[in-house]
């Protein structure tokens, strides 16, 4: 009889033990993965065209400002820039002529200052004149991203310019200086 009672208690105990185990929080095991990502500073300039032309069709005394023959150039300045704390690294779009407009057949020249621009787009300098002696600011931005705009060049004609075909190279550059 006593053995039977002990047996019953054992069974009861096992059952209660099982019941006691039920409230144990759901089993879980964890591991940690560290994820690293490198993002470098980089700058890119995209132009829809790299050539513009001007044609004198009228008397320069009556129509001194000649617009470029082509549609406005679409410019996109892309940048991933850095920041130190909350201070961002500003970046700039600049333009500079390599020299004067030159007619290679005659050697005649016209100052690069005869060429000016008008620009649209957030961050772009809306107007300015090209120089061969210094970089001219064409835009500035202080956050990473893609900055679209347009540039239209004009040529300030003059009756003093001899007829001819003049060429000039201008360089647009983007960077932090």
């Amino acid at each position, binding site marked *: 009889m006593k053995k039977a009672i002990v047996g019953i208690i054992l069974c009861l105990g096992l059952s209660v033990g099982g019941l006691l*185990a039920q409230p144990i929080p759901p089993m*879980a095991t964890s591991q940690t993965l560290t994820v690293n990502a490198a993002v470098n500073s980089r700058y890119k300039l995209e132009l829809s065209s790299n050539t513009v032309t001007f044609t004198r069709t009228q008397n320069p005394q009556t129509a001194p400002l000649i617009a470029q023959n082509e549609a406005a150039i679409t410019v996109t300045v892309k940048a991933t820039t850095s920041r130190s704390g909350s201070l961002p690294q500003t970046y700039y779009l600049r333009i500079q002529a390599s020299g004067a407009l030159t007619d290679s057949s005659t050697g005649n020249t016209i100052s690069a200052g005869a060429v000016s621009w008008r620009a649209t787009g957030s961050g772009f300098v809306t107007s300015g004149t090209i120089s061969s002696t210094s970089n001219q600011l064409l835009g500035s931005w202080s956050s990473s991203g893609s900055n679209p705009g347009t540039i239209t060049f004009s040529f300030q004609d003059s009756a003093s310019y001899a007829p001819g075909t003049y060429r000039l190279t201008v360089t647009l550059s983007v960077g932090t200086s």
Partner: protein
Amino acid sequence: MNTKRFPQVLAAVSFSLLAGAVSLRAQSNLSLSITPQSISFAAADPDVSSTITANQTVNVTIRSTLQSNRNWRLTLLANGDLIASTSSATISISNISWTATPTPPFQAGTLAANVSQTAASGSGSYQATGYLTFIFKNSWSYWAGSYSQTVTFTLSQV
């Protein structure tokens, strides 16, 4: 009841209580391992690489000895957004997603800050290794910097 038998009965009850609890614990076991425990995304031109694949695939080994009527689940919890080490810049962790094999039980997904995402699920006894490939969505709009964040893999009974 004979009081001389009381210690024996008490011992029997204690043992059986312990045995009951231990037997259930022994029946239900989950283990998890991941290799490696760190991955990296290299810098790239967003115009050339709109997405960047992590330098290594993460091998996830799951072992479940749950009863057949018990379900298990593997979740990934990003403990925040990617944070730059030298500035307060952040990149949303939702720009990181993963692909997985074999499917099922593993599944693809996208990380979310402080929200667990399911990466695998099943029931009963199971043991296998899954392969998770993490992918980072590249963009010009990020601030330059070295970012990091931890992701907690949790295998649990549900």
